[in-house]
């Protein structure tokens, strides 16, 4: 479905989703204190690009819902100072291990990228040689 019809269908899905949140008295999913558009789009069953169009009605609806329902970024609520420090430490530990994993991934991808660049350059040289001379090394 494309164009105006598709746009209307997406808005209908979004309204249904927001009405359900309101009925269940749940807050809007959030990430870094802003509405988590990816999670919302997935829950509604459309592409998150819907929120990025010009004059997007979807975005306006999300802003309204955020102010009415509040945001939920999934973090536990601390009732004592001890809880707060423990939650912060756990979050830091999680974040550190995520950073470490990402660093390892970066290193692996860089090594792979370097190897692929060399291989690609070799294939390019062979292709050019074939095209120019009619000979394959």
């Amino acid at each position, binding site marked *: 479905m*494309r164009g105006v019809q598709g746009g209307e269908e997406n808005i209908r899905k979004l309204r249904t989703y927001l009405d359900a949140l309101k009925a269940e008295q749940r807050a809007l999913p959030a990430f870094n204190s802003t509405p988590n558009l990816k999670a919302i789009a997935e829950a509604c069953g459309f592409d998150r690009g819907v929120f990025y169009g010009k004059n997007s009605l979807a975005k306006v609806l999300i802003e309204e819902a955020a102010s009415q329902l509040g945001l939920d970024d999934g973090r536990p609520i601390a009732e004592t100072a001890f809880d707060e420090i423990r939650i912060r430490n756990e979050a830091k530990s999680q974040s550190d291990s995520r950073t470490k994993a990402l*660093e390892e991934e*970066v*290193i692996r991808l*860089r*090594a792979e990228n*370097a190897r692929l660049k*060399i291989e*690609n*350059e*070799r294939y*390019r*040289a*062979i*292709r050019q*040689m*074939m*095209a*120019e*001379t*009619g*000979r*394959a*090394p």
Partner: protein
Amino acid sequence: MTQTSALMQITSFHDGPFGGGIIIGRDIGNGSEELLRSRTPMRVLPRKPITGEVWRVIGTLEDHAVRNPRTGKTESVRHIMATWAAPVAPQGAAIRRWIARHPDIKGVGEAYAERLWDAYGPSLYDILRNRDADALAAILDIPKAVAIIQAFGLMIDEVSALEDLDNLGLDGRTAHASLRLFGSEAGRKFRENPYLLTLLDPWAKVDSAALASGIMPTDERRLLAAVDMAAARAFRTTENNLGGHTVIRGAHLRRSVREMLGKNAATHADAAIQTALRAGLINEIAPKHYQARAPGHMEREIERCVLDRLERSRPGVDRVMVATVIGEVEREDGILLAPEQKEAVLTALSSGFSVITGGAGTGKSTLVKAIRRAHLRRGGGDYIQVALSGRAAKRLREATGANAMTIYRFIKDAELGKFSMTKGLLVVDEFSMVGTPDLWQLLTMSPPDFDVVLVGDSAQLPPIKAGNPASALIQAASIPKTTLRIAQRQAASTGIPDVAEAIREGSFPDLPTFDLAAAARPGVYLWNCPESDVPGAVIQAFEALVGVPARSKNPGLITRLHQMDVQILAMTRRGPAGAADLGDAIEHRWMASQEPVADWGFSVGSKLLWTQNSYDRPTGKLDSKGTEITVDIMNGALGVIRNAIDKHAMARFDDGTETMLSRNDLARVLRGWAITVHKAQGSAFKTVLIPVVRSRLLDRAMLYTAVTRARLTAVLIGEEAVMRRVVGAPPGAWQRLQALDIDRAARRAGLAHNELNGSVNPKGVVHDHQPF
């Protein structure tokens, strides 16, 4: 002249006009850190140096005058005239700068490099050599440490491999090409088989060195290389239009192999061919017809790409939408598409691969415009249109109002992964100019879900590169195609369409005689004269059209001269009636009184032909942010020098783009008054003068292409008998041997296309139009 050997840490590199360039760097060998310059020719330079690298340069010291950009004064500066240059591993404090400036080490600048140097000093070299990332990670984060170790490792590998190749006696350029092809294994491979070097160096040089090193004349490695080289010689197109075969006849192959092996081993030619067959170096594609691996691979891949597209299931086409689009285009362009043209739009949208052919001026560009719009309207995905030459791409852009690029640019962008791999449509204009190597690259690098439409005129000149794929694809019964017949570019009253059609069909029509007193009349004319009179007649005809040369500086007159749009289209570059001599003659007469540009041999008003695809050329103009605006100038662009500024000149090209020329650019330009018919493909001019002289290149396709470049008037100058004879004979492209055969490939793949009962050559090899 003093011999010197310097260790330079590179600060910059400046390309020279003929490859090679000037290396500038700090002298770190003697610790003086003084700036050194090295003039490094292309054969010496293994690759372009990168800022921060350390290079050893050997050569003689000479003083050269250099303009100091700060003071504007000319100073005498000492240069090394390099006879040898190569990167070496940086040591000592030079490592610090190498780390800080290496383009692949992101996020590490002078400060981090300084901290590493402070922590480890000279032992940093050993840390890097031993790939000790942990030591670096004590100072930097791990990704940065690993990036440094990786970059250093690659550099060391390259330096060792270049040393190895240097020991084998390879010059810098060959060594670099060897590394690109074989990587760090290059030296070992060449030791195992010295004849592998024939990929990069001439046969005679490699062969004499190999024989001198003790290889026997009948050594299998020598025999195999001779067969491979012989097939490659047949593949290469020469200046006089020979070669260009992707298949070689047995007799031709044997003769060529014998020549290469020389008297000591000539009798082994048959054995060499048999050995090459067993080794899979060549393939007997039809009785006594052989194909080498590379052209065989290209043709089979083209066949695969075509069949993959033909096989793919396709959504239906909304005929109402197509009719609406055609109506819009007809209104915009003020023309009516013929039923066959309307059908071609439907065919292009309903096939994964299709071909549209038609003579000059049959409205192919309008058709492409309609195809593009209908494709986008139906949501068919991306749209890309390409042509072989820069000029043809520009014309396509103007005709369709959409971006168009050269095939060369497309391949480069595809390598960089710039195209989405979703569905889309690729239109190739002027596809008769596209040789087998280019079509192979174009199709294999196109996203597989892109449909392809080829548009062109098969009667035009064959490709400059090997093969003649247009002919094979047009003949293939499996490929949907549309043939257009209604001429539109030239108004029928000029008579050009009728003359073009007659030449296309092989009969030279009776033409009216060219009249100097009424030179600008529309139509096709003949100036029948002996070959020796042709150059003089061309100049007289030019004068009759544009007027006598100005006797003083006269910008107004020069502007009018260019507005007349008279183009000389020569058969060849060389010879008395070639583009070079005729261009010189026009320049010397018509530009004699105009303002010269330094000592270049050009004047304000001179017509130029650009001979390279050049990107990001300077314009001398700044944008709102103060950055210089740049333009792309494509190979084949015609331009005029507008004015001379100091030692520079401003040239405006036919599409309105302007660029600043410097002395270095003289290697990229030719005189534009007369150009070859090959260069004119894809262009149109108000009037064309066509000097016709006997040449291996002269054939029906050449005359057809030349005449159809004219919008209003075409004048054929030469012996009528010669013209009649060449038009009556089959064009040279028909002599090209190739084995590209879509129908045969479809049959082998067991595909049942409805049209497959067509003309499939039972022998397998397509010897265009003529059975062998």
